[in-house]
């Protein structure tokens, strides 16, 4: 009897250890603490790995052609390039530009209008959207339950091989939370490991003076909702944050995006209207559209000389984090998909 108890105890311990490869987010000590509370669901290496497989798996769309990565490619800091508005199944076009995905652990609200309040709920939006993946979590769970590769992986994480909606969504959440971009030239300069050149330094000063109120360091966003003076597109009629709060004061406000990896996350703005950084700076310089909810900081525009514009762009390029974009642990999980 006692032997049996010891035996079971041992198995329990082994299983416990195997499932306990918890990982911590690594970020500079000068950063604020993440908002994501992982007490309920600590990050775990195996879960992050499996979440990555789901992220790259086109089975998540109704016709098995589109994965999350189709619109959020790691080589573009997890956004979609060359299209203004994201393309989904059957080449349907959505109404907004896909944002880059990183440092989600520091964000309270997701989406341009903050429609989503929790990273684990995020995947439901594209999965159900008829112009994006056109599927449902129910359909996906049924498909995955027939896939031996997932059965095996779930079994090794959860001790049973049941694939549920809750598990799928939380795994995707784990992968996305694990994406931290904090190794740009800017970060190395801040930690004293590198130096800005003269131009970048002038650009940084201009940035601190004119932009950092909203694009706040070190995340390069304060993640608030603001109207930065874009003229509303009469066709898209996107009222932004007001759709969620139903408050007129939130009309035309959108979430301030992070400017990390901005070199690669074009096109810019919620509707992807600008292709180049110089166009964005021109916007702040002389295209500010006045409306009731325009952020007071921008009432007079932010004006730059031609040289200053070049300096500012030079600084923005120091926010590129190639180590993040090309990290093998963020790329297509070939090993997982190649198993028989």
């Amino acid at each position, binding site marked *: 009897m006692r032997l049996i108890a010891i035996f079971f105890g041992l198995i329990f311990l082994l299983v416990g250890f195997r499932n306990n490869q918890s990982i911590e987010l690594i970020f500079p000590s000068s950063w604020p603490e993440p908002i994501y509370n992982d007490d309920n669901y600590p990050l775990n290496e195996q879960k992050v790995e499996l979440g990555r497989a789901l992220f790259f798996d086109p089975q998540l769309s109704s016709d098995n052609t589109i994965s999350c990565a189709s619109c959020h490619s790691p080589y573009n800091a997890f956004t979609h390039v060359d299209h203004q508005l994201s393309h989904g199944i059957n080449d349907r076009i959505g109404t907004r530009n896909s944002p880059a995905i990183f440092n989600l652990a520091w964000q309270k609200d997701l989406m341009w209008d903050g*429609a*989503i309040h*929790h990273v684990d*709920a995020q995947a*439901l939006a594209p999965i159900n*959207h008829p112009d994006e993946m056109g599927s449902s979590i129910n359909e996906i769970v049924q498909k995955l339950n027939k896939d031996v590769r997932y059965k095996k992986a779930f079994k090794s994480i959860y001790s049973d091989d049941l694939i549920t909606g809750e598990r799928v*969504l*939380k795994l995707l959440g784990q992968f996305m939370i694990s994406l931290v971009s904090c190794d740009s030239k800017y970060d190395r300069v801040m930690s004293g490991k590198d130096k800005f050149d003269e131009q970048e330094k002038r650009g940084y000063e201009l940035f601190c003076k004119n932009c950092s109120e909203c694009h706040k360091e070190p995340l390069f966003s304060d993640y608030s909702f603001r109207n930065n003076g874009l003229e509303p597109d009469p066709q898209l009629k996107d009222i932004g944050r007001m759709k969620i*709060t139903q408050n007129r004061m939130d009309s035309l406000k959108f979430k301030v995006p992070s400017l990390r990896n901005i070199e690669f996350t074009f096109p810019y703005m919620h509707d992807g209207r600008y292709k180049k950084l110089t166009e964005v700076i021109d916007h702040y310089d002389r295209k500010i559209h006045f409306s009731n909810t325009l952020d007071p900081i921008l009432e007079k525009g932010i004006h730059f000389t031609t040289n200053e514009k070049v300096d500012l762009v030079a600084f923005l390029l120091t926010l590129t984090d190639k180590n993040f974009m090309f990290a093998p642990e963020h790329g297509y999980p070939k090993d997982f998909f190649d198993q028989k």
Partner: protein
Amino acid sequence: MIRSIQILILFFSLGVRAQDSIPVKVMYDRFEIQPGKTILFQDDSIRIDVVKFYLTNVVVGGSELSSGLLFDLEKDQNYLLIPISQIDEIQFTLGVDSLTNSNGISGGILDPIHGMYWSWQSGYINFKLEGIHFENGIAEEFNFHIGGFLNGYNCERRIQLQGSSNVSRLELDLYQMLQTLSTDQLKKIMSPGKRAMDLADILADSFFLR
């Protein structure tokens, strides 16, 4: 050893026997609603296709039940398992409380595969009612998806009912809710807001122990 196991088994089976179930029914006035069947409504008729809602954090006889209920008209049976056979008082939340909502996704009856989670904006749908209103020969669909917990529009409702000695079921009477169809208000409520709050109030007053 064997003896003590026997005693244990006896103990557990007694525990199970002391449990009871109380059926949950959806009514229109005094008639039980059947999925897809037409009911007379004022001078016209209504067909109800979907009724789905959450009853959570249920407290009976002073103790909280281990699980709530996702009522679904399509299911043959909908019932709450209760620890005692007689109900003096029952308390429950219609919908999903805001703490659970703010923690993101849950499992079991709260797994989003049950179609009770919003996708374009997050949060559980507390209550769904869908069907067709036939009026003067015109068929008009109605969809009420009641939910939301943020921005001052929290649709969860705590309900407390007193029982009597012979309670046999918990009823939701849709009479008041359906009367809103004869007003000229919107027949599609799919997002959180003031109207959802008003309908949640009506629903909160529509539960009865019989």
